[in-house]
């Protein structure tokens, strides 16, 4: 219980709430778009660099490689079960998009969990950063394959869509590329490199995370509000109750899966939490961008609202401390 309250009472989470409140009271508070984008790049850069430096100080072993393999397999496997589960209540396109969403990951949830561990004083290993990068893409490809097999092909935007481009984009999308690149540089330069960039990479980390989560609160709450307002227009997605159930159910199911695998792999407390958070989180940037081109029939009002407006806050506020509590109890 105190872990929950401690988490909720930390500045980053409180700023997330503040962002939500801004939307509720209809304040015009807003972080300018380019600055928000820059904050997200900063977080990827910082977490990647930190991870790389941590990696340089440890040695590469088979447990590490197994973890990375498991991460990729989960990212490719989750969409399969999620697709069949969702298709019972939704269109094939929506089901495929949701499947891809929950197979992939949310970098911000990962970064927040890392910040949570830092505040709690629990250590974690650098290679988890690599796991995050490896989990972004497989789900996208599996999701589209599923749709192409079970849905009606020949979608309209197909004229602008090519597999080659899609694969390239999911492998090298900005966040994957920046985090892996920063990790490599952190790994190459090690603690000498860290000394040079420490005030930026470590000093400002939690403060800038606060400002970033302030914006995420605004963005998530705004999408939640929009999805409710659109309840009767063309823009409407699925009924809210169904979306709520799915968007809380998926992270819980996946967290259970992640916890199990983490336990089998024998991960340490911090690593197990980050691993679980990755598996439990859902993408709201890379996957929607790919879905718009490859599956324009799928409604962002459903899959994006679920991952951004429900699953993301759920993981932030409840998921992270809850998974942590379970891990502590399991260990």
């Amino acid at each position, binding site marked *: 219980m105190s872990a929950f309250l401690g988490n909720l009472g930390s500045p980053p989470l409180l700023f997330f709430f503040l962002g939500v409140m801004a939307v509720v009271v209809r304040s015009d508070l807003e972080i300018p*778009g380019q600055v*928000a*984008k820059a904050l*997200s790049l900063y977080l990827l850069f910082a977490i990647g660099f930190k991870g790389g430096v941590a990696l340089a100080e440890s040695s590469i072993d088979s447990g590490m490689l197994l973890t990375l393999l498991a991460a990729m397999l989960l990212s490719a496997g989750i969409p399969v079960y999620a697709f069949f589960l969702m298709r019972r209540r939704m269109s094939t396109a929506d089901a495929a998009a949701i499947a891809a969403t929950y197979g992939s990951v949310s970098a911000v949830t990962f970064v927040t969990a890392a910040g949570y561990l830092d505040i709690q004083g629990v250590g974690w290993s650098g290679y988890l950063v690599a796991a995050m990068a490896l989990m972004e893409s497989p789900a996208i490809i599996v999701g589209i394959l599923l749709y192409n097999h079970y849905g009606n092909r020949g*979608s*309209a*935007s197909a*004229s*602008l869509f090519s597999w080659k481009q899609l694969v390239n984009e999911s492998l090298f999308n900005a966040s994957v590329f920046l985090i892996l690149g920063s990790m490599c540089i952190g790994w190459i330069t090690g603690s000498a490199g860290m000394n040079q960039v420490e005030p930026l990479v470590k000093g400002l980390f939690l403060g800038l995370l606060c400002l970033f989560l302030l*914006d*995420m609160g605004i*963005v*998530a709450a*705004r*999408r939640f509000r*929009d999805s409710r*307002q*659109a309840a009767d*227009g*063309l*823009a409407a997605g699925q009924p809210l109750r169904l979306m709520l159930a799915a968007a809380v159910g998926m992270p819980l199911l996946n967290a259970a899966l992640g916890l199990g695998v983490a336990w089998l792999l024998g991960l340490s407390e911090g690593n197990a939490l980050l691993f679980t958070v990755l598996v439990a989180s859902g993408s*709201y*940037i890379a*996957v*929607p*961008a790919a879905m*718009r*081109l490859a599956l*324009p*029939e799928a409604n*962002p*009002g459903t899959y*994006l609202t679920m*991952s*951004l407006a429900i699953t993301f806050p759920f993981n932030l506020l409840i998921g992270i401390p809850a998974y942590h509590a379970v891990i502590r109890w399991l260990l």
Partner: protein
Amino acid sequence: MKPCKRIEIVIEAPLAQRLAVRLRQLGAPGFTLIPDVRGAGDRGERRADELSGDSSNCLILIACDDQATVDRILEAVRPLLSSSGGVCLVSDALWLRH
């Protein structure tokens, strides 16, 4: 001054990027793209918000004096509008030749 068609297309940013590439293949003599454009229509509101996966619109302007090319462009745009929404307007203008 040469008569020409002025094609104006409003579509979602990710599609616009790719449409721009396609336009050259279709023989458009050039195009101008205004990014980060907001809007609302049948599919609700669209605003620029890179963090949220929500995407803004782009406005693409094409001056074209060859009717066959105009038709090719319109044929390429039509299915995009059906699947992803947006607007395409065509009007007459005079093109200042230099």
